[in-house]
């Protein structure tokens, strides 16, 4: 093409010798940086998750404790001694505080012991 500009005599540059090394160094630095950023984002996710768990626990915990209270109330249900103890123990129990001695020695040792274990 006759109207083409002739650039052949103009200086043609070549990249400097260390340019490629600089590119590699920058790429390595970017890779390292992106790893740090991902770790940072992971670490910022941990407190977020922890606070979420905390809030959830705060919301759920009252219902758990009410269940536990209910269970406890069942387990501490009043049981009359009249229904579970033998007559000898009952008479000893009723006479407690009526004299200076607690009369514990009058109770047959094995009967008293078995009662305590049962309790």
């Amino acid at each position, binding site marked *: 093409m*006759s*109207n*083409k*500009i*002739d*650039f*052949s*005599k*103009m*200086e*043609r*540059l*070549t*990249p*400097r010798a260390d*340019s*490629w090394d*600089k*590119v*590699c160094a*920058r*790429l390595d630095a*970017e890779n390292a940086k992106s790893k740090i950023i991902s770790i940072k984002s992971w670490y910022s996710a941990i407190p977020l998750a922890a606070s979420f768990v905390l809030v959830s626990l705060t919301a759920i915990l009252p219902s758990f404790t009410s269940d536990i209270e209910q269970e406890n109330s069942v387990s501490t249900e009043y049981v009359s001694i009249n229904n579970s103890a033998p007559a000898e123990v009952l008479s000893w129990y009723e006479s407690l505080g009526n004299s200076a001695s607690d009369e514990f020695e009058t109770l047959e040792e094995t009967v008293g012991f078995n009662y305590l274990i049962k309790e």
Partner: protein
Amino acid sequence: MDEKVILQHLKGGSREALSLLWQAHSANVLNLAFRMLKDRDEAEDVLMDIFVQIPKKIQGFQGQSALATWLYRLTVNECLMKLRAQKRHRELEEEHLDTIVEEALGKNEDFDTSGFDPEVLEKALNTLNAETRSMLWLKDAEDLDVKDLAEIYRMPEGTIKARLSRARKLLKKELNHV
């Protein structure tokens, strides 16, 4: 290595493929940047910036054009951004070029630039705006066709031809003054 294979390796993050690309195209990128920025150091910076960006930007490259064409587009965009940032890009925008009829182009344009001193040619070139200068460089020094230029500058082929014609006329006028 085949360009498709290089592209595949580049997308996989291969440093070796990037090195091959550097060997094949770094000088072309550097010279294009130098033609636009008129500064060797800045051109080197652009070259390095582009090759640092390639591993990320290549993921969006579909391979519809040649890698060289894609690299030239990155270079032109990077240089224009740099020029805008430096507020040095004060050259006038060419007006109404789209309306120039293609048939009117190429007439009375024949002139011989081979006899001119490179420095004189350089000075004349510098009277053109950065984009047009780069266009002329890619067309006449790197032998790209108008279709590639249309791809690089995202302009219709007619606009590219009009700009090239106008640039040659301006260059001729400048050289005749010398």
